[in-house]
């Protein structure tokens, strides 16, 4: 009985088509700046620095590095946003909690 041949490996994800005239990966600078201004956290600065790396690496021909930095820029903007939302939720819980305490103790 013939063995069923294993399915062919999935095609490798096509690399982003680099080259002269190509656009660099999105450096997510908007998110880095938004989270820096709105969230007041150092992670937004990290995101901006990663965004700078994207353009720098792309300009020097390091396309894979630019892609990695773009993903890092996105990651740090998301971290900044999530931590900020968490802090605000805790903050509101704290305010509401104080309100409840002061209203019950008065």
């Amino acid at each position, binding site marked *: 009985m013939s063995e069923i041949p294993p399915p062919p490996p999935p095609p490798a994800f096509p690399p982003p088509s680099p080259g002269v005239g190509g656009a*660099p990966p999105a450096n997510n600078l908007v998110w880095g700046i938004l989270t820096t201004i709105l969230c007041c956290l150092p992670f937004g600065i990290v995101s*901006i620095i990663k965004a700078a790396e994207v353009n720098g690496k*792309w300009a020097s021909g390091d396309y894979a590095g630019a892609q990695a930095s773009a993903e890092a820029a996105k990651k740090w903007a998301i971290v900044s946003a999530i931590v900020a939302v968490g802090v605000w939720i805790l903050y509101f819980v704290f305010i509401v909690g104080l309100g409840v305490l002061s209203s019950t103790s008065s």
Partner: protein
Amino acid sequence: MTRSAVETNRWTALRAPAAVAAVAVVSVSYLAAVNPHEGGNYPTCPSLLLTGFYCPGCGSLRAIHDLAHGDVVGALDMNILAVIAIPWLVWRWYAWTAAAAGRTITRKPAPAWAIYALAGAIVVYWIARNLPPLAPYLAP
């Protein structure tokens, strides 16, 4: 793909930019109407409350309120970065919308040094506005 399918996709692609524009218009209208200069209208930023330091974004709400009322000098006094960032964000929104609408915008990527300089400027602003001699000019 048929022509109408392309049209439908285009409208679908424009949903996110339209949503962002709607949120921005509502937020700015609210900020223009409810004055953030008056205490108690908005909660104190937790980072200011916890650390006691002004962050690079401190005063942004007041700056947006001032800009909405046409007071550019007042806005600069509250937060220089916000005043610089807002036109840039509007431009980025425009480019995003145009790209979603199918227009190709060719632009040169910003040089890396400019973005590093921006990150450095934000950190310097963060520190400088908390230094007592500079606070009268840079603190909100």
